[in-house]
């Protein structure tokens, strides 16, 4: 199966020059917790100092006390040493905790930002981007970025501080020996530089494949019934396995870099030690160096390479984090295409007037779904929109509540172009019941009061108008009954009833019903229609339905055909006219079998 181009993201185009900017943005994210950050940074010098004191104490012990069999002096050194250990333990504990805490806070903030950003993105984005891919961003990419802080940035700063300390003390003790040790450093840089570029590419690939794997998994979980019904388990498993394998392979590639870097640094460390013995040994022979100093030096060399080895490990973590950060920021940078304009205009009166003026619309390219579509709905009117399937009825609804923006022409609600409305207000003003009744996990009641308002009274009234009161009563815990994902524990029609009730609780000035009762039996539908007529009296309603019996009593029926309103009028008038509507009606009546 060819992977569609639109589902792949263009994160490859992000250059490497991005690094500094990326690091800057990461820092900006962490700044909210600067107190924690500085708190742990402030600990570093103390920790380093204490760590460096240890070998020096050892040197003193050997040179001044052990070699002279100075018993009391040795004890004194031992006591100091113990004190250093205790202090070190306390400081390290604080450091570790502060670091972890900062990491968690940064994840928390970044996640919230990402999620809130996603909530603002337009429908077109979600048409193209699988949810599983987005989940990977919000959940695991964010975690990788926080690694950049906990084991990355902090540890790097800590390591650098340690290094500076070690270098200083080594130079102070014997600069010649120190220089011998440092001779290895340029080699180190060369090695790290080589890995840097490759590792980043490898990590980008890892993240991309992980997103692909997760998207597939997410969709499989949701469509598992279909897979099972058509006995496609083996086939889907093979598809999944292929993505799983792809991911594993990319992971292994990245491991190669990690491991090589680690081993390289380790080997270099030992080479430095060899140099030290060789050169230091010579200097002892010359009498320029004490034994204690050489021993301490060897320990310092160890301490010199520990942070460097660490840096090597951190380096790869940082590369992984950067790869994730790129993905996160590229998503954050993608502004919503449909959003509230800077200068909004409020309508003079929220009467419920709707007007399409020469609207052209295409989802993609120039494939016009609506072509020069014009109609008006006056306040309080009950209008029906009919047309054959795929004609563009639901599309009209999406333009009305500005899920999409028109290509040409205007959509006016109460005299104001929807593009000038405050988006939230517009959508509070125009309520839509969708063709596909999506409900969420949670209680029935929480599903009825989506935007948070709506008291018990409103809920009960809406339920009875939607003919759902009996249904709710039948449920084991009434309004508190938990619904599972997508309300799979209700029948399809029951879901539609709740979706209707939900819209009534929402109580908009203009109500749009897009096939709201398509899976409801005729009797219930009839009752709902009557109740709605009472509840929505004086308010604008637009009904879309294929079952013409649902809409025959509308004030006006608009027939959508080839992207425009082909004819309009009352049921009787349209029948008399003998046009498209009459034909639809005739065919419907004759749709019986045999």
């Amino acid at each position, binding site marked *: 199966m060819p992977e569609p181009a639109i589902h792949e993201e263009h994160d490859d185009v992000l250059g490497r020059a991005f690094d500094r900017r990326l690091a800057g943005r990461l820092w900006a994210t962490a700044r909210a917790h600067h107190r924690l950050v500085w708190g742990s940074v402030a600990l570093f010098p103390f920790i380093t100092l204490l760590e460096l004191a240890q070998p020096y104490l050892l040197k003193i012990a050997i040179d001044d006390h*052990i070699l002279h069999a100075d018993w009391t002096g*040795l004890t004194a050194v031992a006591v100091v040493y113990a004190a250093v250990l205790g202090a070190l333990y306390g400081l390290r504990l604080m450091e570790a905790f502060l670091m972890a805490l900062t990491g968690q806070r940064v994840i928390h903030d970044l996640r919230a930002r990402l999620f809130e950003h996603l909530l603002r993105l337009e429908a077109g984005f979600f048409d193209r981007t699988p949810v599983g891919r987005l989940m990977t961003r919000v959940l695991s990419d964010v975690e990788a970025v926080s690694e950049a802080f906990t084991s990355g940035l902090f540890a790097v700063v800590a390591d650098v501080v340690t290094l500076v300390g070690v270098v200083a003390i080594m130079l102070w003790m014997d600069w010649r020996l120190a220089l011998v040790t440092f001779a290895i450093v340029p080699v180190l840089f060369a090695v790290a530089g080589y890995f840097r570029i490759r590792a980043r590419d490898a990590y980008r690939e890892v993240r991309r494949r992980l997103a692909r794997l997760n998207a597939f998994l997410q969709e499989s979980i949701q469509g*598992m019934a279909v897979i*099972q019904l058509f006995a496609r388990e083996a086939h889907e498993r093979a598809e999944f396995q292929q993505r799983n394998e792809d991911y594993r392979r990319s992971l292994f590639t990245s491991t*190669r870099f990690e491991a090589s870097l680690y081993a*390289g640094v380790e080997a270099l460390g030992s080479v430095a030690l060899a140099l030290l013995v060789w050169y230091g040994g010579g200097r002892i022979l010359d009498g320029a160096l004490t034994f204690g100093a050489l021993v301490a030096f060897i320990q310092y060399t160890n301490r010199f390479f520990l942070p460097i080895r660490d840096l090597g490990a951190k380096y790869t973590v940082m590369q992984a984090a950067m790869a994730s950060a790129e993905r996160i920021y590229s998503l954050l940078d993608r502004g919503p295409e449909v959003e509230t304009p800077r200068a909004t205009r409020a309508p003079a009166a929220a009467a419920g007037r709707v007007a399409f003026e020469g609207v052209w619309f295409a989802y993609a390219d120039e494939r016009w779904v609506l072509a020069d579509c014009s109609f008006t709905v006056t306040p309080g009117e009950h209008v029906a929109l009919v047309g054959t399937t795929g004609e563009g*009825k639901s599309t009209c609804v999406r333009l009305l509540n500005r899920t999409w923006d028109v290509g040409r022409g205007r959509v006016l609600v109460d005299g104001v172009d929807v593009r000038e409305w405050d988006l939230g207000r517009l959508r509070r003003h125009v309520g839509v019941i969708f063709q596909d009744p999506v409900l969420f996990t949670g209680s029935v009641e929480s599903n009825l009061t989506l935007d948070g308002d709506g008291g018990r009274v409103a809920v009960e009234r809406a339920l009875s108008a939607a003919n759902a009161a009996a249904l709710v009563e039948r449920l084991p815990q009434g309004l508190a009954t938990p619904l599972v994902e997508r309300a799979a524990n209700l029948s399809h029609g029951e879901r539609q009833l709740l979706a209707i009730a939900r819209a009534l609780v929402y109580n908009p000035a203009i109500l749009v019903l897009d096939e709201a009762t398509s899976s409801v039996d005729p009797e219930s539908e009839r009752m709902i229609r009557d109740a709605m007529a009472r509840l929505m009296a004086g308010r604008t309603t637009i009904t879309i339905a294929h079952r013409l019996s649902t809409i025959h009593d509308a004030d006006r029926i608009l027939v959508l055909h080839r992207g425009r309103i082909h004819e309009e009028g009352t049921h009787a008038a349209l029948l008399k006219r003998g046009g498209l509507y009459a034909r639809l*009606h005739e065919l*419907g009546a004759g749709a019986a079998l045999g």
Partner: protein
Amino acid sequence: MCLAIATGLSLLIPWTVKHAIDALAADGAAAPLAHYVGLIVFCAVGNGAARLASRFAIAGAAQHVAADLLARLYAALQTFPPSAFARYTTGDLMARATSDVSAVRSLVGFGTISAASTVLAFVGALAAMMAVDPWLTVWAMAPSPVLVLLVRRYNALVTTRTHAMQDRLGELSTIVQERLAGMGVVRAYTMEARAAAEFAGANAALRDASAELARTQAHFTPLMGLVTGLGTLVILWAGGTAVASGRITLGALVAFTGYLGYLAWPTVALGFTLALGRRGLASMERIQQVLGDARTAADDTAAGVAPEAAVRFANLTFAYEGRPPVLRGVSFEVRPGELVAVVGPTGSGKSTLGLLLARLWEPPPRTVFLGGVDVTTLPLGRLRSALAWVPQDAFLFSRALADNVTLGRDGLGEGDVRRAATTAGIAEEVAAFPAGWDTVVGERGLTLSGGQRQRVALARALAAAPPLLVLDDVFANVDAAKEGQILAGLRAAAPTILLMTHRLRAAQGADRIVVLDEGRVVETGAHAALLAADGLYARLWRMQRLEEEIARA
């Protein structure tokens, strides 16, 4: 193996240093320094190479283990009936498949590497230290028992906190998944603020749970550092006296501190390893939980002759968990070649019949028969290849339309797709798309109209020309003209059809109509007979008729 070599080689280094120093101390001029230096370099390079090889081997193995685990998880999910999916949300399952699997990967990978190198390092270093001076070794190891006790105490805490943290992650993941998948509703009902608030709550809970865990784990590394430090302290003190009294050489003392230094890193790593290990084990439990829920008797072989198409429900009573029965004593039959329609009010149990027939829910034994065979005794693969069920809400994958119809089934060519699409009344519309059958639809078929989605799902069921069709309200979003056309085509193809519908017009021409009400069959018969009986069906029919009459007038 490689690790053992690496450890051996790296242990040689302090030993060499010891000899170098002793040689220097004994007789500076005669010390073969170059000799020692060469040995150290050799050890270093060998150590690096061996370590590299071992890392590749172990990390590679861990990645394999994780990939296999994920594959097993996926296979288990494939056996999940809807009832199991009701227990886990998609988001929770996703969290397990990602975060938990990767925790296991770390356990097997880093965990094994550092555990193995720690053990080897300890064993090697201990042996070497014993060789230098047993008495001093005992001293150096004195603080270790304390370590064991402390670690034990923390482990229990880490486990419970890991569980808590992963559960929070599952909750957060659920919110993200559901809200993003239901974005249309979120947007239209200006639910953004509430969604963000819910997210914020779960997000904060996760942060706190993670911080709790981190607080426990923060102890590990400093603790290990403390213990090694104490070792050095003891050596300094006890060893110092020994050197002073001339019992051991200065070189031996230096080598000792070298060994302890060598142990420092593995010991610190031990803390990290233990944390990883705990987290990995806790995650493994969560994965096992899903694996344990897999339906064991799952048999997806379609081998054997498919039972001929005839359905019989015999005194079927069925209740969903914790609910009163939704079907009560339902009995009726669909004979080969017949079209039987099931009608009835919303929630009367029509879809449940289909779910039980396809065994997405398990019916009681001897109540549902396909071709005279109790479906509960049929292998699932065989049962499902004998019927094509079009569910009430059409689910499409975000793939090309052609792939959505064939679902990768062998032997389904372009011709079959066209034929099925023509019968389903979707061929012309698809042909009008710029990419035709290669058009990739959004998730769940998001980029198609409601009616188009339903008809693609119908085409999918028709593609393999199944002997039995179960159509659950598939015309709900299709106009009446299309509906009539499709039904006529289906009849001409003449498979056995079980049709659930609210459109009485579609039911009108059925060989038999079964009227369900609150889970009971209240009437059966042909259209005319039912009208004559003047029951529920007649009432519903009149209601639809009446409206049309009124409209006509």
